[in-house]
């Protein structure tokens, strides 16, 4: 799980991408991006989430965005991010979603 806080903009998104890359490059992992502390997100931040999700899934992992703030949700809606990434309201939901995906994969 990666907890983020502050502004997820052109500056910090590079750092975030690098971190996700480092976590997912070795094996299939399941990533929960916890965004409750994020107050600002721009297109670069969104892109880093999209790229992170794509890379993780490509390696057989999963990528869930959890607990975005009201403002961040508005931005997600603006670009219809929900169509390409799983977005849930809380970490519990994310874990539940993760368990469900695992069960589906096992069966």
């Amino acid at each position: 799980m990666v907890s983020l806080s502050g502004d997820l903009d052109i500056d910090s998104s590079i750092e975030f991408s690098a971190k996700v890359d480092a976590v997912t490059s070795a094996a299939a992992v399941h990533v929960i991006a916890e965004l409750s502390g994020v107050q600002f997100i721009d297109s670069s931040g969104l892109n880093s989430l999209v790229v992170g999700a794509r890379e993780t899934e490509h390696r057989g992992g999963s990528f869930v965005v959890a607990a975005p703030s009201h403002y961040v949700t508005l931005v997600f809606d603006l670009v219809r991010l929900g169509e390409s990434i799983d977005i849930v309201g809380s970490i519990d939901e994310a874990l539940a979603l993760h368990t469900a995906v695992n069960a589906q994969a096992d069966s």
Partner: protein
Amino acid sequence: MTPSSASPPTSVEDVLTRGGPTSRGWLATGAVLVLATLTVVALGLVWRQYEDAKREATEELGSRAILAATVFDTYFAGQLAALSAIAESPSVTSGDVASMTRYFASFRPRKGGIFNAGVGWFDLEGRQRATSDPRGPTTLSFGDRAYFASVISTKKPFVAEVIVGRNSDRRIVVMSVPTKDDRGRLTGVLAGGLVLPPSRQDSRSTDLDYAGLEVLDRVGQQITRRDLARPENAELVSLLRERKQGLLEDTRGLDGSGDHVVAFASSAAPSWVAVLDQPASTVFGDARRTLLIEAILLAAAFAVILGLIWWAVRRARRDLRRQRARVSGWAELTRALNAATSVEGLRQSLATALATEFPASSGLVVIDEGAESNGGKVTVTRGSESSIDLDDRTATAIAQAIGDTGGSPLVLETHQSLHSRLAPLGVAVVGGRSLYGVPLVDQSGSVEGAAALAFGAQYAVSDTDLTLLRAHADQAAQALIRVRRHEQEHDVAVLLQESLLPDELPDVDGVRLAAHYRSGVAGTNAGGDWYDVVRRPDGITHFSVGDVAGRGIRAAVSMGQLRNAFRAYALEHVSPAAIVQRMARHVERDGMATMVCVTFDPLTYDLLYSSAGHVPPLLIDTEKRSFERLEDSASVPPLGWFGEGATSEKRASVAPAMSLALYSDGLVERRGVSLDESIDGVGAAILSSSADPEEAVQAAVGTLADAEQGDDVALLLLQFHDTPSAIRIEIPAEPLLLRELRRRVGRWLTMRGLDASARDASLLALSEACNNAIEHGYRNRPGTISIALSHDDASLEIRVADNGEWREPEPDSSRGRGMLIMRSLMDEADVVSSQDGTEVVLGQRL
């Protein structure tokens, strides 16, 4: 011009220290004491002489009285002897009345005869038996008469009291002797009468000093009086009778009047008393007159000698005062010349010193200030007793004449010499009689001017005068070189300083600016004050005011270096503390400077300040009508006196309708007033001035009195007004900076009154536009993003421009999403590309 070689006849030290006036006070006191002693002794002698004269006068009076008494005795002794001879004649001894009558007839009263009042013989019963009176004996009995009774009882001659004649007013004295028969038996009494001549005080008696002579007979009658009146003063009469002879001083006279001297002597035969009774004033008149004359002479001598002493003392005091004045004048000249910072001031100092030293004369000092100067070259003072008119042309000609003497003094004592010397030069000293001058010769020997004294009355100059004049001139000449160098340096420093200061103030968003700068007034040193304003591309503006310690060119150069350093650091750093910290590196070794740096962000209204030992800025709130100092918790010691990392900065909240005054200490340092009071005075002046910043600056500078405008003064006034409606800023195209940009612009949008959602949308759109410029325009290479913000009631417009190349973004990329976000959020999101770069125009209707 030749150098001065003639040395003065006496040195100025001799002149200044001449005379030992300290002992003169004692001398004067001693002289007065001696004089007083002599006067007392003289007074004693005079008094003694007076007493002697008095005693002599009284003794003389006494001896005259004795003489008078003796005369009386002798006279009466003779008369009685004559009477006794008659009594012993045979016709009397025989007792024959007829014979006696015949004998007595020869004593008929006649002028010059003896017993001119008649002679008569009385028997033992007191009956008159024989008489010289042709009418014959009277039948009256004389037995009760004193002279009869006395002779019968004593058998001795007797002189009776004076009586007034029965039928005339003749005064008669009767004397009597006993008569005896042949066998010696008492037979009767022979009496003879004398008529006293009428009493008169004639010139003869006065010449003999018998004025005031009274003669008292045995019953105390004053026989010199027609009426034989007895004296008023019966007490005195009884005293005279008792003492017989003597002197009475300071007593009442016979008539009872006071302060008389009475000399008296008794004559035994007639039992008379001769009395010399004179008023003391008559007796002692001569003595008193002598005393008076001597006293007057003595007093006159005393007064003359005292006057001489007083004159000497006064003269000594005047000399002392004069000498003191001379010494203090000399010291004052030395001080004034050392303090003089201009040729003008030096001329004034010398002229003032000459006027003090020679108050009666008109002083004249000529020093050329050089071709570049616009000022005059002549200073003239007018003496107290002088009506001399010296215009510049005359003064210059006199200076020329003095210069021509080749270094020796110009001495023109008479009007004639004055005229003959100056007439060829085409000038005349109107009202002048004597003129003396010396050249001002500097160390190199060149004649730089002249000093002269002109007298309205002919004045014979002394060696002392010339020495002083020369000494004054020499001292001024020595100071001249220093003053000239100083003046030159001052001019250069002022020029340098003014050239280093900003020509005009930049436009600063949200702030109106006014500044005042004045270098120290002419005659003092220019210092190293500066003020400066640097508006960074990102809109943040740094203001600074500083003051380099020291004066002249060096300070001005140091100021220039510091100011350049400030400009560089201001562009490099946002933090005022960082700027102040780095400024310290540029202070010369051993140098010192103070400064304050204030940083203002027009987007956020954040104000930060940092000070290094500088006077505190004043924050003035025109709405609350109050002001406060941005105090020293953010202050460190002056530049050059603190180490690395010592500086700090403090935040102050400002709002529209506030002003901030940054100034140098020249504005608030004044004599006799505390710094606090002065700062408050400046704050109050700005508060009460109008809204115009220029006027506020003038009001603040106006708190300085003219006399206090010696130091440099720098003042920078910031007047904050409403949040600007349009701002253009530039920032480097760096991802790292966008968060701060959002914070600042967000604050501006809030202050402009946008609601949270409109603000957030605008900030996101701005971020996307900037991302575009960084990623697409510059492709992450260095560049600059220009942002223009403008806002009015109806709309908000944000323009973001770069100088890079534009590429159409791929739809499913961050850029694609960026464009999507901008277009979704804003009412308008246009991308305008050109060769020069790309501009994104974001518009939102409100």
